[in-house]
C-alpha cells in the first residue's frame, strides 16, 4: 500500500477550498490556484507507481488488479470534473465508458477510414462520446439537480439497452463482444497486463495533467462559481451554460477513453460490466477519496479496489485478513461483504468526514506539522447543510484601516462624448417593468431611467418591490417590459445579458463564494474574458497564465481599494458580514462597470463603515459610473443620492431630488400609512 501514501501528501494549494492563508499581498500577481507544485507532485506520483510496477508487483493477477485500479482512477478523475468541480449529479459516468468501449471496438472491427488500430478507435470513441454527452447536457440545460440525476439514470438505461440489442454495432454474440483488437504501439503488441499497465499509466498521467491545467486557468474557478451559485456567476459574466456543458462533456469523454482502453485491453466487453453497479461504485470512490481534490479519485479507487481484495485474503503480496464468516448457512469470506461495507461507508463518510480520505490526510499532516487545521468542509457538505455554522468574527480586524492610496482610474464609460452634459443622458431606461409571482404583482409597470454619472436611490416600504425591480433589471427573474442600456434594447429574464453591457450588481445578502479565496472571487467579475475556455487552458499555457496574472493584479487593486488586500488569499468563508459586503463591492469595482446596481449596500454596516461606503461610491461616481441603489436608511440615501425614486406596491410614486421627494405626501403616506379620517375629510 505504498502507492496511495504518496498521494496523501498532495499540495494543498491545488484545491481552491483549502488554500493555505498565506496570501499576504506580496505575491500579488500569482492567483492562489497557481501556487504550489502540482506538476512536481504529479511526477512524484507517476514515478512512484512506475517503480511500484517494476519492483512491487509480481504476477499477472496483481498487475491486472493494479490496471483495474488505474482504470477506475481515470474514469473517477473524469467524474471529479463533472461532480466534484462542476457539481453535476450524474450517474452516467459508467455508461459513457461503455459508449467509448463499444464505439472503439466497432471502429476497429470495421476498420473505419481503412485503419484498424486502437489509436484510431479511441479517437472515434472520443468524438462520439463527446457528441452524445454534449447533446444530453444541452437537452438538460434547464433541469434541476434532481431531475438531472434521474435523467442520467434514464440515459444509462437507454444506452445499455441499445448496446445489448444493436448487435450490428456491438458485434456481440450473446451478451459478450469478443475479439476486440489488442492495443499495439508501433507494431509492438501490448497484450498482457504488464504491458497494458503503461497504457493506463499514460492515460492517467494525461488526465491528471489536464486537471492541473484546468485548476491553473479560469476554467475551474468559473466551474466552481457556476456550481455554488449559478445565478450570481451569470450576473458576473461567467458563461454558466458553457461551463456546465464543457465540464460534463470533458468528464464523460474521459470516461469514454477509459472504457475504450478497458475494452481493448481485455479483448472483450459486456454491457453489464458498465452497469449501475459501476455507476454507484464511481460515486462511492469519489466521495470516499475526497470530492475536492484531484487526488481523491486516486485514493478512493485504491481503497475500493485493494481493500476488499485484502479482506479476501491478501493483495499485492500483503497478507490479508483471511477468515470466513458464516451467514445464511453459507461460508463467506470478508470480501463478499464488499457492497454492504461500501454502502454503509458512503453514509458514514457523508456524515462524519465529508472531505474524504484525502481530507483526513490533510488534517493528519497539519497535525504533524503543527499548522492550523484546514477547513473541514467541501462544497458538497455545504450544499448538504452539513457544515457547522460559520464563525461570525472577522479573521482580521484591520480591514478598512488601510485606506486606499491615490484613486485609480476605472474605465471611463463608453459614452465619452457626453461629458459636456453630465446628469442628463439616460444610460439605463427601464420602461413598464412588470413582475408577477402567482397572483401577486410584485412590480407593476414601473418605469425608471438612470442618468449618466448619477447616483439614483430607490426606496420604498418593505415589500414594495425594490429588490424584485433590481432582479428584473439584472435578468435573474422572468419579467416583462422593456429595458434599454445606452439606447440598445436588452432581453429581460436572462441573467448574463446585462453584464456584457457593463451592468454589475450586488445582492441584499452578500453573495460571495465560500470555496474560493477572496482574490479568486474578485477575479470572477473580470471584464477580460479572453482565453477563458478549456482549449487555451490546455494548449496555450503561457498566454493563459499571463492573462490570469493580469486579472489577479487587477483584482488585487480592487481589493486594495476597499481595504481587503490583506485577506486576498483567505477563503471568503472567513470574512465577517461587513467584509463580505466590501468584497462584493471590490468584485463590482473589478468588473469596471458602467452602471452599478446595489441592493441595500449599507445594511449591516455601522456608521463608520457606512461613511467609508459613501466615500467608495462617490469615487466610483467620479470615475464615471452610474449607480442605482436600493436602501432603507434615509440619511444614507439623502447624503449620497442625486435623485430618489419611491416605489410602493410595485409602482413608482415619485422621482426627484431627495428633498422634494420626501416632502411628497404620497411618499409620506407610503411610509407612514394613510390617515383614513383625514383622507375622507379632505
Amino acid at each position, binding site marked *: 500500500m505504498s502507492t496511495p501514501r504518496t498521494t496523501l501528501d498532495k499540495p494543498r494549494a491545488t484545491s481552491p477550498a483549502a488554500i493555505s492563508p498565506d496570501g499576504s499581498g506580496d505575491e500579488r500577481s500569482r492567483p492562489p490556484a497557481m501556487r504550489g507544485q502540482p506538476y512536481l507532485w504529479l511526477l512524484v506520483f507517476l514515478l512512484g507507481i512506475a517503480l511500484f510496477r517494476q519492483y512491487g508487483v509480481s504476477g499477472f493477477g496483481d498487475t491486472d488488479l493494479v490496471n483495474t485500479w488505474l482504470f477506475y482512477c481515470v474514469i473517477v478523475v473524469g467524474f471529479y470534473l463533472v461532480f466534484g468541480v462542476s457539481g453535476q449529479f450524474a450517474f452516467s459516468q459508467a455508461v459513457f465508458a461503455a459508449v467509448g468501449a463499444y464505439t472503439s471496438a466497432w471502429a476497429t472491427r470495421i476498420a473505419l477510414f481503412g485503419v484498424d488500430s486502437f489509436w484510431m478507435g479511441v479517437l472515434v470513441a472520443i468524438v462520439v462520446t463527446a457528441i452524445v454527452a454534449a447533446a444530453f447536457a444541452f437537452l438538460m440545460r434547464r433541469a434541476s439537480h434532481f431531475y438531472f440525476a*434521474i435523467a442520467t439514470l*434514464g440515459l444509462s*438505461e437507454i444506452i445499455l*439497452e441499445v448496446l445489448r440489442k444493436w448487435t450490428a454495432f456491438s458485434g456481440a454474440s450473446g451478451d459478450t463482444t469478443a475479439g476486440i483488437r489488442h492495443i499495439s504501439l508501433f507494431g509492438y503488441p501490448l497484450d498482457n497486463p504488464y504491458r497494458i499497465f503503461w497504457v493506463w499509466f499514460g492515460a492517467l498521467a494525461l488526465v491528471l495533467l489536464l486537471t492541473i491545467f484546468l485548476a491553473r486557468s479560469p476554467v475551474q474557478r468559473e466551474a466552481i462559481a457556476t456550481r455554488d451559485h449559478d445565478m450570481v456567476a451569470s450576473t458576473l459574466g461567467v458563461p454558466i451554460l458553457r461551463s456546465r456543458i464543457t465540464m460534463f462533456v470533458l468528464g464523460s469523454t474521459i470516461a469514454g477513453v477509459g472504457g475504450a482502453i478497458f475494452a481493448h485491453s481485455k479483448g472483450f466487453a459486456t454491457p453489464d460490466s458498465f452497469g*449501475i453497479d459501476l455507476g*454507484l461504485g464511481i460515486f462511492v470512490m469519489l466521495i470516499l477519496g475526497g470530492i475536492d481534490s484531484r487526488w481523491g479519485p486516486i485514493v478512493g479507487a485504491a481503497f475500493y479496489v485493494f481493500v476488499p481484495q485484502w479482506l479476501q485474503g491478501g493483495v499485492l503480496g500483503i497478507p490479508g485478513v483471511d477468515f470466513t464468516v458464516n451467514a445464511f448457512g453459507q461460508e463467506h469470506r470478508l470480501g463478499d461483504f464488499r457492497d*454492504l461495507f461500501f454502502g454503509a461507508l*458512503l453514509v458514514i463518510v457523508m456524515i462524519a468526514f465529508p472531505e474524504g480520505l484525502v481530507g483526513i490526510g490533510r488534517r493528519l499532516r497539519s497535525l504533524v506539522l503543527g499548522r492550523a487545521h484546514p477547513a473541514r468542509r467541501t462544497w458538497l457538505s455545504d450544499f448538504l447543510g452539513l457544515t457547522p455554522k460559520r464563525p461570525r468574527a472577522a479573521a482580521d480586524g484591520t480591514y478598512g484601516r488601510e485606506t486606499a492610496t491615490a484613486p485609480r482610474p476605472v474605465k471611463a464609460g463608453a459614452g465619452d462624448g457626453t461629458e459636456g452634459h453630465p446628469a442628463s443622458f439616460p444610460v439605463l431606461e427601464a420602461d413598464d417593468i412588470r413582475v408577477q409571482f402567482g397572483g401577486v404583482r410584485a412590480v407593476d409597470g414601473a418605469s425608471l431611467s438612470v442618468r449618466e454619472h448619477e447616483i439614483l436611490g430607490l426606496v420604498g416600504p418593505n415589500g414594495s418591490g425594490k429588490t424584485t425591480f433590481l432582479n428584473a433589471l439584472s435578468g435573474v427573474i422572468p419579467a416583462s417590459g422593456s429595458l434599454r442600456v445606452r439606447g440598445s434594447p436588452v432581453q429581460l429574464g436572462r441573467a448574463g445579458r446585462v453584464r456584457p453591457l457593463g451592468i454589475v450588481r450586488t445582492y441584499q445578502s452578500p453573495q460571495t463564494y465560500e470555496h474560493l479565496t477572496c482574490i479568486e472571487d474578485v477575479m470572477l467579475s473580470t471584464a477580460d474574458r479572453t482565453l477563458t475556455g478549456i482549449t487555451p487552458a490546455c494548449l496555450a499555457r503561457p498566454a493563459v497564465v499571463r492573462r490570469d496574472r493580469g486579472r489577479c493584479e487587477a483584482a488585487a487593486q480592487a481589493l486594495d481599494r476597499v481595504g481587503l488586500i490583506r485577506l486576498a488569499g483567505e477563503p471568503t468563508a472567513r470574512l465577517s458580514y461587513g467584509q463580505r459586503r466590501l468584497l462584493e463591492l471590490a468584485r463590482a469595482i473589478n468588473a469596471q462597470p458602467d452602471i452599478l446596481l446595489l441592493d441595500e449596500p449599507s445594511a449591516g454596516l455601522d456608521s463608520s463603515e457606512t461613511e467609508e461606503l459613501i466615500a467608495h461610491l462617490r469615487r466610483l461616481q467620479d470615475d464615471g459610473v452610474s449607480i442605482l441603489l436600493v436602501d432603507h436608511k434615509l440619511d444614507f440615501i439623502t447624503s449620497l443620492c442625486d435623485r430618489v425614486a419611491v416605489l410602493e406596491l410595485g409602482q413608482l410614486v415619485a422621482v426627484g431630488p431627495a428633498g422634494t421627494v420626501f416632502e411628497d405626501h404620497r411618499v409620506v403616506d407610503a411610509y407612514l400609512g394613510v390617515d383614513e379620517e383625514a383622507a375622507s375629510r379632505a
Partner: protein
Amino acid sequence: MSNLIALLASGLAVGAIAALAAVGFLLIYKATGVVNFAQGDLITLGAYIAIWLTQKDGAFGIGALGLVPGYIVTILIMFLIGVGLERVAYAPLRGRSIHVIVITTLGAALVLRAFIGLWQGTTPRYLDSPVRGDVLKIAGANISYQRVLVIIVSAIVVVATILLFQFTQFGRQLRATAADRDTAKLCGVPVNWLSMLAFGLSAALAGLAGILLGPLGSIDLTLGFNFMILGFAAAVLGGFGSIGGVVVGGLAIGLVQYVFGGYVLRDYNAIFPFVLMILVIALRPQGLFARGSALRRL
C-alpha cells in the same frame, strides 16, 4: 387486433407497476420531501421475502406458507422494514438537507442489494402466483391473469392512496408535515409517528409491487432498481408530486413501451419510457399535465 389487445394489456400492466412503484416513493416524498433511492431495492427485497416465505426450502424450515398468507406476511414484514429504515437512515438525519438524505438512501440501496445477494445468491429465482398459468382470452388475445391482477390491484391501491391523502385526517397530517414539519408539530401533529408510518406504508407498497411483479418473469438483484427508474419516469411525466399524475404517467410509459414499441423499433421498446422522460425533462419540466411546477425543494 388480438396483437393490439395483448400489447395493451402488457402496457397497462407495466404502467400499473411503474405507477405502484412511483406511489411508493411519492408517499415518502409527500410526507418528508425525501426521494428514496432505496425504493427499488425494497421492491426486490419484497419479491425475495415472498419467495422465502412461500417456497419449501424457505423460512426457518417451517416449509411453505400458503401463497396468499405468505404474501400478506411479506407485506407486514416489509412494513416493519420500512419503519426500521426510517429509524436508521432517516430519523438520525432529520433536519439535514434533503440531499444528504438522498445520498444516504443510495447507501441504503447498496446495503440492501448486497444483503439480498449474500442471502439469496445471484442466480435468478422465480415466484409463484395463485393465478399462475391461467390466461384470459379476449378477442383472440391471450392475457395472463397475473397481468389482470396487477392492473386491478394497482388501481385499487392508487385510488386508496388518493383517498387517504385527500380525505382522511392522516392524509392532511402527512401533507402538513411535508409542507412544514415544525409548524405541523406545533399544531399537535405526531410527526415522528407519521414519518415512520409513511416509510412503513411505502415499503409495504414496495413489497406489494415485488409480489405482483415477481411472477411476470425471473427475479434478480436489479429487478426493483429497473422498475424504480420506470417509476421515476412515471412521476416525472406526471409532474412529480401528484398521485393522479403518476397514474397517467405510468400509463403513458406502459403504452409507449408496448403499444408504440410494439410496432416501431420493437427490439428497442424498453428505451421508449426513458426517451419520453428525457424529452419531458428537456421540454416540459413541470410534467405533461401540470400547469405550475410541482417540484419543490429538489
